[in-house]
């Protein structure tokens, strides 16, 4: 067994000397951990989040993030509307450190063991943790939470279910020890990433039982998190107060959290931030973000988000079933121009078929040397024309139905892509703008030739999204794409435990996707945050996505 200990005494109060020692140890461990390839190593474990020694207590943090959630069930959600607003009320088994957004550190589990064969994960849970309604937190709550995530009841849909597809049994060993038994091992980084995902909040077994396993319309089911629900005004603001009984003594640091619901990339959010009505704004539009950056006393950060923006091609339609036509369309894109087209609407970056910033993917500098990603697009266009000719479409294709999701970025891109396809390979398409709910109906029903939209993944690890995006019958494989060689490779990637060998397999997968594209990658989203310098303890520059480090327990105000 690999033994991981975060807090040997798992005591909830410390004296000053112990505290300083721990901070020092934690800092040193974090520094070492940052150089280690895989999370879950011994050193990463000594890093239960502790308050910044310089931190001050008190104050109200006003945070603007996204519109109101459609419902209250975090597990069933896939949008920051939920996790951005509700996360401060809950904890997870493990979490990503707010210091870098990457390192996995303990949370409700203070220690975990992984069996040598990688088929058993044992979590040792903290004692003395209470839910906001005063009930004790036990392993039964973890079991109820994860049973629901891994095997949702009828009428409950949880996007993270596939992450735990190999979890065959969840066994409560004692009230503070739980074991996850797996039918086959998965890479450690993948599994620990799944357990540390901000989505997988621990909820009370009783809450689930009382509501038939569905929390969509239950506003403030109790959590164990650093903040407690106070009030909510629909589509306006959610107010929370410091949990005085929080297990992690000394946290949270602010007394009150006001979370304002505002549309992402909107002038409204920008105006609220720039006028000082918010202390911290997430998902700012580029114009407000740039303006904020120029202001004195304001800090700003841009970081990577787990969203791909893409065009799907309906392979059930004849010309698009031909891999040469799809590759030609892929090569006909001037990606750097596409980024430029939306630069005042949303921040984007160039990428291929997997996250360009993931260590297993082809690095961006290398990718930009490949056809289809170069700044000089002439060679790619030449190759695209050759492929069209070879496929028997030298004269081009007319009348493709291009379904465009009604959002500013997609509408801008659709026009640019329409022009690029026409100019470079003489493909003519008719744009059809539809609402989001209609887009998925049309595309899901196969009533399209091309469709532009965006999809998201929970983890950066290819094992999370290769199956969903590119798998045969994958839930987001809107192109109806199949490629036996790739599907076989995905199985190998999922099961390969050695990082170097996995990386080689991922690169092989990229090559297949380049030659036989299941979609046309348009761009990868970035997130623009800005905050007034009175907010400390939160700098998302190195974070991946906006779903894991969203609890605000470490943030403090001056």
């Amino acid at each position, binding site marked *: 067994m690999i033994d991981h200990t975060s807090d040997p005494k798992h005591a909830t109060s410390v004296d000053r000397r112990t505290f300083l020692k721990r901070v020092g140890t934690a800092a040193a461990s974090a520094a070492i951990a940052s150089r280690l390839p895989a999370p879950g190593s011994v050193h990463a474990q000594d890093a239960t989040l502790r308050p910044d020694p310089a931190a001050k207590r008190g104050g109200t943090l006003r945070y603007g993030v996204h*519109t*109101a*959630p*459609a*419902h*209250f069930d975090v597990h*069933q*959600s*896939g*949008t920051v509307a939920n996790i951005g607003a509700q996360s401060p009320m809950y904890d997870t088994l493990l979490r990503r450190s707010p210091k870098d957004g990457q390192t996995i550190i303990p949370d409700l589990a203070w220690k975990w063991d992984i069996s040598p064969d990688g088929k058993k994960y044992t979590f040792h849970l903290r004692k003395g943790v209470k839910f906001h309604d005063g009930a004790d937190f036990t392993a039964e709550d973890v079991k109820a939470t994860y049973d629901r995530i891994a095997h949702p009841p*009828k*009428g*409950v*849909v*949880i*996007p993270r*279910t*596939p992450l735990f597809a190999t979890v065959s049994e969840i066994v409560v060993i004692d009230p503070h020890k739980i074991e996850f038994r797996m039918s086959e091992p998965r890479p450690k980084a993948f599994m620990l990433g799944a357990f540390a995902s901000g989505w997988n909040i621990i909820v009370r077994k009783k809450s689930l039982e009382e509501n038939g396993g569905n929390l*969509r*319309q239950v*506003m403030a089911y109790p959590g164990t998190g650093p903040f407690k629900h106070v009030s909510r*005004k*629909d*589509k*306006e*603001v959610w107010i929370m107060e410091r949990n005085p009984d929080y297990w992690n003594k000394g946290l949270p640091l602010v007394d009150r959290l006001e979370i*304002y619901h*505002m549309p992402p990339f909107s*002038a*409204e959010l920008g*105006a*609220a931030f*720039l*006028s*000082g*009505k*918010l202390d911290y704004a997430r998902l700012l539009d580029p114009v407000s973000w740039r303006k904020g950056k120029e202001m004195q006393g304001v800090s700003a950060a841009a970081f990577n988000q787990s969203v791909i923006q893409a065009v799907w091609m309906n392979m059930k339609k004849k010309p698009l079933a031909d891999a040469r036509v799809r590759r030609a369309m892929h090569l006909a894109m001037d990606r750097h121009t596409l980024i430029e087209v939306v630069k005042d609407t949303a921040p984007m970056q160039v990428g291929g078929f997997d996250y360009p910033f993931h260590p297993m993917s082809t690095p961006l500098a290398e990718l930009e040397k490949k056809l289809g990603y170069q700044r000089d697009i002439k060679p790619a266009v030449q190759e695209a024309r050759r492929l069209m000719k070879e496929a028997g479409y030298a004269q081009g294709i007319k009348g493709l139905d291009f379904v465009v999701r009604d959002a500013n970025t997609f509408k801008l891109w659709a026009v640019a892509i329409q022009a690029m396809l026409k100019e470079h390979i003489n493909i003519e398409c008719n744009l059809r703008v*539809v*609402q*989001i*709910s*209609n887009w*998925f*109906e*049309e595309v*899901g029903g196969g009533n399209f030739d091309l469709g532009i*939209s*965006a*999809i*998201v993944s929970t983890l950066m690890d290819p094992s999370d999204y290769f199956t*969903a995006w590119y798998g045969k019958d994958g*839930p*987001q494989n809107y192109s109806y794409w199949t490629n036996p060689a790739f599907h076989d490779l995905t199985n190998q990637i999922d099961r390969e435990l050695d990082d170097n060998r996995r990386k080689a397999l991922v690169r092989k997968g990229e090559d297949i996707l380049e030659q036989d594209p299941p979609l046309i990658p348009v761009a990868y989203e970035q997130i623009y945050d800005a905050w007034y310098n009175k907010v400390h303890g939160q700098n998302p520059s190195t974070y991946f996505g906006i779903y894991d480090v969203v609890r605000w327990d470490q943030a403090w105000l001056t």
Partner: protein
Amino acid sequence: MRKYLARRAVYAAVTLLGVSLSVFVILRVLPGDPLVAILGVEGHAQMRPADRVRIMADLGLSDPLPVQYAHWLVDIGAGRLGKSFFRGDTVADLIRHRGPISAEIGVLALIVSWLVGLPVGILSAFKPNSMPDGLARALSVLFIAIPGFWLGMLIVLALLFWFGYKAPIVIVHFWQDPWQNLQIVIGPGVVLGLAQGAYIARMSRSCLLEVISEDFVRTARAKGLREGLVVMRHALPNALLPVITISGVLLGFVLGGSVAVEQAFGVPGLGRALVTAVIERDIIVVQNVVLLYAVIFVAVNVLVDLSYAWLDPRIRYS
């Protein structure tokens, strides 16, 4: 009079029934899946057929359409406006919380439209084809032509970039803090009021031009009355009826316009809630709020009709 009122009540009921049927049918035949907004893109993609059946049944969307419509009418009759598909908030709560803000905006728009439109109309009518008349006519065409949401956005941006100002970002009711409340409603109220004021200015000008050529106005002047008295006591009351009528009709524009203008100003009123509900396909919210708007529109127009008798004693209802 009673007979007239009874007849108007029947007409109003038929109109509202027509509106309810139209909005019900339109919301059901429009393409788009409400489950996308409820489950999110990823959840929707993973949804199994059994999940869909269960969720649609929970939402009351699996009954036959006539049954759903009948249920809705029964609920309205019983004073139940139902619950949002999403967060479980009731539509009644939504209206109670957001309605007053939108109502204030509507009333403010009406006041602004009269305060601006009527004097401009009078000035234009009594100095026809003069420089002030030309200016007034040009401005009224301009305000009719400018979309309210665009003007709203310009105002928001100008206030922000020049003065670093933004109105409160959550609802503050008048009884909670009148000053904060005024900051929320004044922008949309003025923008909507200016557009309606332009219509009122044009209508009052043309009515007054017609009235001031009448004999009784000439007589009033011949008697040596001051021009102010001629206008206020003799000409204006006789020119007001069409202006009041158009104000009732304009209320429809105010209600419709408030949806976009509230959005532009970021005011969390009922209009904005309607936009969000349409995007989310929150059918229950949309159909009830649209019906509420229809009730207000019909009621105001009945009141406008009734006010004729009070303004012009020659009019009798039978």
